């Protein structure tokens, strides 16, 4: 794995080095080409949403001749709006429950002397090794037995259960390194554990909570297997499954499908752009341990 970052064999002087500039240029070119390769498919996807069917078939590379916003309206009405709302509901609810249960558990494991702490820690963190796909068939029977098949609850509960391990991992690692001054002070002042948790610890954990929330939102929003199997009603489908159903429907009007894909991609991109800094900071604080 040789780094092809600069021309070898020449000693570098501190500061800007002229001799490595060709290497720098090459590296820049590689970075830019790569960036274009990464972003172009998405640009193509968006442009295709504006084309007509004939244009799509005729000239894959070209720009649309007219900007057909009606494709987007059509996609919106064909179901994107419904799927979007469903995704928001399920994602929002599961973020709340996951963060809540995970921080409660993380706090308990790091601050309270609960019985079986070791075993519980292993149980909670070990869950990271168990995957949704593996659990599909048994869950299938379980969800049906609990009579929550084809409801939001099925997804919310499952998304929470399967993400608690990772979220506990993040929050716990962060809580371990928090200095306990303020908590101890609050306890001395007579605050209950509950109050310390909500009023002192959670605000201090804001960076990791934001990061964990974003990661949870990302997971829930894009989750596919459970949404595919446990939701049947078209009105309840989340975005990933709904888009697949749309592909089965708009078999001959592809620009509408591209418009749907574009609209579906936007929320997460926007969310990421807005939360980028918190996200990165949270990751670095969480993984730095």
């Amino acid at each position, binding site marked *: 794995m040789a780094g092809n970052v600069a021309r070898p064999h020449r000693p*570098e002087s501190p500061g800007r080095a002229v001799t490595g500039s060709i290497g720098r240029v090459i590296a820049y070119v590689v970075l830019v080409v790569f960036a274009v390769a990464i972003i172009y498919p998405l640009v193509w996807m968006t442009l295709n949403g504006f084309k007509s069917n004939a244009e799509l078939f005729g000239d894959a590379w070209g720009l649309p001749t007219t900007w057909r916003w009606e494709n987007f309206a059509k996609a919106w009405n064909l179901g994107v709006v419904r799927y979007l709302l469903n995704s928001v509901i399920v994602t929002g609810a599961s973020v709340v429950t996951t963060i809540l249960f995970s921080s409660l558990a993380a706090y308990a494991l790091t601050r309270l002397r609960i019985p079986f702490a070791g075993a519980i820690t292993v*149980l909670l963190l070990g869950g990271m090794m168990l995957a949704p796909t593996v659990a599909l068939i048994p869950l299938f029977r379980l969800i049906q037995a609990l009579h929550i098949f084809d409801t939001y609850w099925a997804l919310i509960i499952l998304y929470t259960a399967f993400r608690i391990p990772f979220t506990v991992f993040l929050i716990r690692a962060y809580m371990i390194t928090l200095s306990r001054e303020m908590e101890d002070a609050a306890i001395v002042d007579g605050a209950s554990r509950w109050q310390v948790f909500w009023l002192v610890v959670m605000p201090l954990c804001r960076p990791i909570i934001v990061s964990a929330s974003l990661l949870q939102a990302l997971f829930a929003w894009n989750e596919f297997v459970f949404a595919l199997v446990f939701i049947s009603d078209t009105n309840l489908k989340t975005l990933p499954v709904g888009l697949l159903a749309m592909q089965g429907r708009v078999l001959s009007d592809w620009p509408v499908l591209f418009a749907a*894909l574009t609209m579906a991609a936007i929320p997460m991109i926007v969310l990421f752009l807005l939360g980028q800094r918190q996200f990165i900071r949270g990751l670095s604080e969480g993984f730095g341990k």
Partner: protein
Amino acid sequence: MSQTSRLGRWSMLLWVAPAVVLLAVFVYYPVVDNVFLSLYRWNAFSPKEVWVGLDNYVNLAADPVFWSALFNNVAYAVVSVIFQVGGGLILAAVLEELVHGRWKGLFRTVYFIPAVISLTITGLLFQFIYNPQIGLLNQLLSGLRLDALQHSWLGESATAIWSIIAMSQWQSIGYVMVLFIVAMQRIPRELYEAAYIDGATRAQAFRRITVPLVREMTVLAMIITVSGAFLVFNEVQVMTAGGPNNSSHTLGTWLYKSAFFNDQMGYAAAIAVVIFLITVTAAIFQLFLNRGKVVQY
């Protein structure tokens, strides 16, 4: 500090109760149930389950699609480690070293964006890109006068799974790159300065300083990519549903197809048990490799 009464200590379990209950019921119980379910033959239409003992596992061992799916998962893992972990590491290093200021943020964002987009969206998008007639890839090859290289990418057994794997690299390399950037930013600049004064090239600095110091992140990235590789479902299901001729199945999609198309749920449960064993073993193995090897600086 034994001010907490005995009752108080047990009531503290309430803090972890929701998490533990959810995990026990929905994450751990299915693992056990899978084993039981795999010992029967049953499907959506059979009124009752038929005990077949280890038959499902015997059939699994003799099933060429199972082995092909396993191979696909392994291929996925190997390629992902090379491109995502290896490539991500190099990209991160280049980005950190060469690009500064606003440009760094821009590049980082651009590379990362595919990772936040749903696999369904990218799967459907790449289905079009790989379309033999109007897709970007064949058109690009045609434009570069490389017509001979054109294929029906998702329609040929030989190329289907590799096309999907390639798409996956496109999607995830930015994610791993960001993880590495996070790790690299914690390395003190002075180490590099000292190395350069001593005459080291950038490549040497990379090998001797960067790589060892991001070791923890490397291990984490490897765990993520390898276990992700064995759990692949979404993109394969969307792009080819395992075809053509079952060539692009991964263990996950073969499980799904066995259960919900081929009417063999017991068999699917057996596949699930195998996936479980593989992912747990891989995770434990990787963690074991990393035990106590923290590099101090």
